[in-house]
Structure formats: structure tokens, C-alpha cells
């Protein structure tokens, strides 16, 4: 398997703080990462409501070894903490998801969301500024009109590149519950935002109304048995979307059938194995992420212990199941006590849909090659990160004699978790968020 044998470690820290591996502020914890559709830009969102966008350097012939490094391109405050006075609730500024819009002109557009509000941001460059105004000086001071004796035509002069981010749309007041995901439609005109009980369809141009297309809120809240955990549009079919539930099922819906897509057209669920039933069966079967493959033929879902690949044509069981960290099955009780069992891991496809990746604890992340059925565990850590070094596969010892370089289950650090990862759409470049650090790994391809 073409593994990540060489990597370029980048440890990006938020610019305002000095961090060590053990000391960081809560606000700096990265809460989402996303490549744009070309892979040129990489956006991260954090708990403090900030968005940091990285841009890949252009390859230069003079410095071929600095091939495509990512540097900070823009930083802006996307969301601020708010207070809902009606319900006496504080609304966190944490960025839950970022989704890029495909580039249509010189500017870049992305959607970012916290628990309640989605915002459309425009990121644009300015490298020229007009000089030579008549009514004001170059530094902005108003000129006394009586002193003007002649007119001049302002001209654009080059200036240092400035990247500015402006909020173009704010989509608010449409969600009673916490937004967990957003997904841009392939028609590039609409997108969906999803909370625990509802999915709303928006037009990117219209902020004062949205259409509710899924509503699973029961008439009597006491009868609530499941919530929506994630939703995504099909990558090609603009009328199809899927949403996952806390009960471990996925529903595929067609918006052409009815205005309200409460009736699914496909229902994916694997029957539970009664022999593995435990106190925590419901928790570990809750799906934390759902992703369509790039080719639109498969769905991938992540629950607490496994990643599953589903064929859209087969609803009764997954096509493939990968064990991410099955050694945790015997530790569910303590993971419940320390709340780790509620961690929501994400999963990603590579560009060709041949490899899938997801995170784990101890800053481990796992890759599964669907064709060769081989898998690897890698670690994102500063101690192991040296430029141009090879990422060494890691192994967790589940019992018996622990070999050298293996780590035992009891030694795993559950405070170091990799929940968010993203894969470059075309190349073998991955970005991995480990708490407050961002690691970008690249597979060297000659």
C-alpha cells in the first residue's frame, strides 16, 4: 500500500498564543478541517470561532524541495459567542463545520457554522489600491475643496497583498437544536444545514427563509428515540441526500418525491449482533459521520468503534466493515465515565475512493486500503515529527507480551484524540487536527 512514507510536518499554531504540547487554551482546539475542491486551500475552524485558511505555495523551479507547502493565507473571526435571551442559553462560537464552495471567480467562498448560525464568507485578495483622489489625500484625510486647483485621475498602484474575508450572508434563526453538519449541493445554488431533529434547505442567495425537508421530531418529545447526526448531499445527484441517525441507520432521500422528505427511499441498517449487546450498545452504534464517496456509489459511516462502507444498492448490510480500535470494546465503561465514548470521529475518502481514513486516540489515525485490505496506524505527534522523516506505523498491543515499540491499551492517552481529518481531493496530502495542532502530511511522489 502506498503509505505515507515521507511527510512534511507542519505544526500550525494559532497566531495569538504560544503553545506547548500540554498547555493550550480551550479556544485553540481545532474543531474542523476541510480542503477546498482544488486542494489549493485548507480551512480550519476552532472552538474560539476563528477560521484559519492555509494556501498551498506554488511550486517553483528554484526550490523544488519546497514542494507545495501550506502557509497561512487568511485568519478571521467567523462566529462570536451569543446569548439567547429567550431561552437563557449561551450559544457557543465553536465552528462545527466548514464547507467550501467550488471556485467560480477570483474570490473564494466558504460556509462556516456554529450551533445555530451559518455564514457565507468571501475571501478575496487585494493587491492594488487606488491613489490620486481629488477630494482626499492618499492617507485618507479630506482635502479642503478650496485648495484644489486641478483635477487628476486616480490610478491603481500595486500594494502588498492583502487577503480580506467578508461575511456575505448570515443564515440564522432556522434551528432550534444544535447544527451538526452542512453540505453544499452539486447545483451550487443550495445547501442543507442539519440539526438534531431537522434538515433545512437553503438557497445561498436567500437568508430570510429556508425550507424544512426533514423533521423527525415526534409529536411527544417523550417518544424521541433517535436524532440526526449528520447529513450530506450526493456529490453528483442534486436531488439526493443522505442523513445518519444515532441509532446507526442511514436514510437516503430524494427531494423530487415530496416537499418533506420524511419518507426515505433507501434505508441502510445492519442488524445488531445480540451477542455483543452491552450497556453501551446504543452509544457505540450511533453514527458520528457520513460521507459519500467521490464517485457517488458508496457511503461511508463512522461509529465509535468501526468504519463501514455501504453500497448504495445494498441496504441490509455494509459492503465493508473496518475495526478502528476494537481493543476499546472492553473499556467502554471507563470511556463512558470520562465522556470519551461520546467523541464524534470523522472519516474521509481519498481522491480515488481507494483508501479511507479516520482518527483514534493517542493522536493515532488509521488508514484502510479498500483494495489490498491492508491498514496502518500512524501517529501525529511532535516528538515523532522531523522534517522529511518517515512516519513509522504504530501498533497497539491488546494483550500478551508487548513488543518493543508497541503501546499497550492502558497507556493510551485518551485526551489526545484525532476527530477531524481531511484528504486532498487529488493528491496524497492529508491534514490531521490533533487538539490544537494541525499536521499536514504528504506522500512523496516522484
Amino acid at each position, binding site marked *: 500500500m502506498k503509505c505515507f512514507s515521507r511527510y512534511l510536518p507542519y505544526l500550525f499554531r494559532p497566531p495569538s498564543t504560544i503553545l506547548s504540547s500540554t498547555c493550550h487554551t480551550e479556544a485553540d482546539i481545532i474543531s474542523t478541517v476541510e480542503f477546498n475542491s482544488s486542494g489549493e486551500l485548507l480551512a480550519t475552524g476552532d472552538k474560539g470561532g476563528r477560521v484559519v485558511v492555509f494556501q498551498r505555495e506554488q511550486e517553483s523551479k528554484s526550490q523544488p524541495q519546497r514542494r507545495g507547502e501550506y502557509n497561512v493565507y487568511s485568519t478571521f473571526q467567523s462566529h462570536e459567542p451569543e446569548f439567547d435571551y429567550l431561552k437563557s*442559553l449561551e450559544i457557543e462560537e465553536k465552528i462545527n463545520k466548514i464547507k467550501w464552495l467550488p471556485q467560480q471567480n477570483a474570490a473564494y467562498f466558504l460556509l462556516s457554522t456554529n*450551533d445555530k448560525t451559518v455564514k457565507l464568507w468571501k475571501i478575496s485578495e487585494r493587491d492594488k489600491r487606488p491613489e490620486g483622489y481629488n477630494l482626499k489625500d492618499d492617507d485618507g484625510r479630506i482635502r479642503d475643496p478650496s485648495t484644489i486647483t486641478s483635477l487628476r485621475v486616480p490610478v491603481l498602484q500595486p500594494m502588498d497583498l492583502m487577503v480580506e474575508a467578508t461575511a456575505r450572508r448570515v443564515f440564522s434563526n432556522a434551528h432550534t437544536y444544535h447544527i451538526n453538519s452542512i453540505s453544499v449541493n452539486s447545483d451550487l445554488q443550495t445547501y442543507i444545514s442539519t440539526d438534531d431533529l431537522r434538515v433545512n434547505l437553503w438557497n445561498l442567495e436567500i437568508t430570510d427563509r429556508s425550507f424544512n425537508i426533514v423533521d423527525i421530531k415526534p409529536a411527544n*418529545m*417523550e417518544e424521541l428515540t433517535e436524532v440526526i*447526526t449528520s447529513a450530506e448531499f450526493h456529490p453528483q445527484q442534486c436531488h439526493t441526500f443522505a442523513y445518519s441517525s444515532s441509532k446507526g441507520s442511514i436514510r437516503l432521500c430524494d427531494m423530487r418525491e415530496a416537499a418533506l422528505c420524511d419518507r426515505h427511499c433507501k434505508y441502510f441498517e445492519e442488524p445488531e449482533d445480540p451477542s455483543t449487546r452491552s450497556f453501551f450498545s446504543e452509544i457505540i452504534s450511533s453514527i458520528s459521520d457520513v460521507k459519500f464517496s467521490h464517485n457517488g456509489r458508496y457511503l461511508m459511516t463512522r461509529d465509535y468503534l468501526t468504519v463501514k462502507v455501504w453500497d448504495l444498492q445494498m441496504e441490509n448490510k455494509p459492503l465493508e466493515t473496518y475495526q478502528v480500535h476494537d481493543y476499546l470494546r472492553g473499556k467502554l465503561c471507563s470511556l463512558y465515565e470520562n465522556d470519551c465514548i461520546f467523541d464524534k470521529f470523522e472519516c474521509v475518502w481519498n481522491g480515488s475512493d481507494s483508501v479511507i481514513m479516520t482518527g483514534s486516540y493517542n493522536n493515532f489515525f488509521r488508514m484502510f486500503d479498500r483494495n489490498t485490505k491492508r491498514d496502518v496506524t500512524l501517529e501525529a505527534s511532535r516528538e515523532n515529527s522531523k522534517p522529511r522523516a518517515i512516519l513509522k506505523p504504530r501498533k497497539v498491543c491488546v494483550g500478551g507480551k508487548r513488543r518493543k515499540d508497541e503501546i499497550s491499551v492502558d497507556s493510551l492517552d485518551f485526551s489526545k484524540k484525532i476527530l477531524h481529518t481531511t484528504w486532498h481531493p487529488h493528491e496524497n496530502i492529508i491534514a490531521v487536527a490533533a487538539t490544537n495542532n494541525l499536521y499536514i502530511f504528504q506522500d512523496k511522489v516522484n
Partner: protein
Amino acid sequence: MISTMECGADAQNLISISLMKIHNSRTQRGGIKLHKNLLVSYVLRNARQVYIKEKYAEIYRMQQYEEVMTVCNEIQELDPLDLDAEDDEEHARTACCGEGASPCGSVCHRGAAQPAAHARTASAVFGCASLEEDTREPDPSYYRSCCMEASPAPHCDQLPASGSAHCNKTTVLDLDTHVVTTVENGYLHQDCCCDAPPLGQGAQTPAKKRKVEPGCYVSDVEEISDFTAARKRAKREDCSYHSLDYTDTSNISNLISIFGSGFSGLLSRQADLEQICSKQVLASLGAWTRAIVAF
């Protein structure tokens, strides 16, 4: 069949932990997380099922079911107003309800290894003692239900000993419509206690005060409001529970009241109240698992 082999998971311990999580979630930044609380409620339900099963298995092992019923019948003839052990009761109730916000009744949880343990468990969840000590009914055989509202400062209506009807309120706020629904149960614990033979009294234990007749509540089920109708549906789900007549709607309302307002009071007396909460939770029905999410 839930495996209890993982990490020596103790059902009662899980229940305590889960209740604590639900309590903590109410003060977390960002508001109550519906998804997480729903999952916690599933753990609560699973733990309760295991606990009940284990308890029943233990009881059945110790004594035949018929003997248990015989004991119950014998208890019916006991004087319900036996005041000899009142001091213990009073003390327990004071311990439970010293905090103004606590709706939790003094639950008999002493001497767990009793043949009638299951019955005591059932009776333990019934009713809740008065919140205000100065107006506490001196007769420990009566229970006060608490009027709980969604506001942080719950209060409890005190009933005169004559036992006029009082309301057992639970308030639910619908986050979408912002409609506050208050459900009232016009049932009087005292009436039921007086009318029906008490159940679940270990003859040897001070717990015999804890008498509530499930039968009387069952008879009132038909008159309950929509809110408690949900509990009725939940009763049918839990067959094993139902067959042993542990269906008590007021327990659920008490539990929901606890979740609604009484946690800080409950949890200030950690050791006792863990037991109390656990016992109450265990003897309740499935509806409370979903009632939690209503917050």
C-alpha cells in the same frame, strides 16, 4: 441480554454516573445537548433493566415467588401506622429532604438483602416527602407529592393531613413552540395508602412505612393526562416490570420532577441520595428515559 462482563460494570454505579451526567449537562455551556442526553438515557435504561433482572433473580433464588406474595399478604394486615420506627424514618427523610429543592422521598434502602427487597424497592419509589420541614406531616405514612416547575426554584405544596387532593405537576418546555405544558396528576398518595393494602413491607424492617399500593395507581391510569399516558405506553413495553405490578405513574412524575429541579438538592447528599436516586430510577418505567430529553 446485556452482557455485564465489561469492566465489572455495576448497574447501580452506571445509573449514578448517568444521573450525574444529565445533571451536569444542564449547566454546560451551549445548552443541553439533545443527542448526548438521549444516549445517556439509553444507558440508564439498560442499567435499570440489568439491575431489575439481577434483583429479581436474587430474590427468586432466595425465596419462591409465592412466598413473597404470602409475605405481601401478611403485610397487608399489619398496622400501617406503626410508629415505632418512625424516628428512623424521620431521620432519613430529613437527610433526604433537608435541601429545599429536593423532592426525593426518604426511601427505604436499608437492609437490602431481604426477601421482600423487590417489594421494598417498589414502595421506595412511591411518593416524596415534604420539602419543608416545618410543615412536614408528622405522620410518616403519608407522602407529599411535589409540584415541580421548570424554574430553578421548585417548591412543594404541603398537604394537610386530611388529605385533600393536591397536584403533582410536571412542566415541559417545548423548544420549538415555546409552549410550556404543565401536567397535573390529581392523585393523592394518602388516599391510595389508606384505601389499598400497602405493598412491599418487610415485616421486620422500618421500611414498612413505605407503603403504596400499585393497584390503586393502576386503577387511576385511565384518568391520567397525556403526559402520563406516555408512561402507560412505556409500561406495556416493560413486560417483566408490569407483571409484578410496579407500574406507578407518580413515580415517573417524581423522577421527572427530580430531573427538572431537584438535582442540586439531591446530589448534595451524595451517598444517601445515590442510593435514593438509584432506587427510584430503578423502580420507574421506561417513560422517564424519554422524559429527560424533554428538558
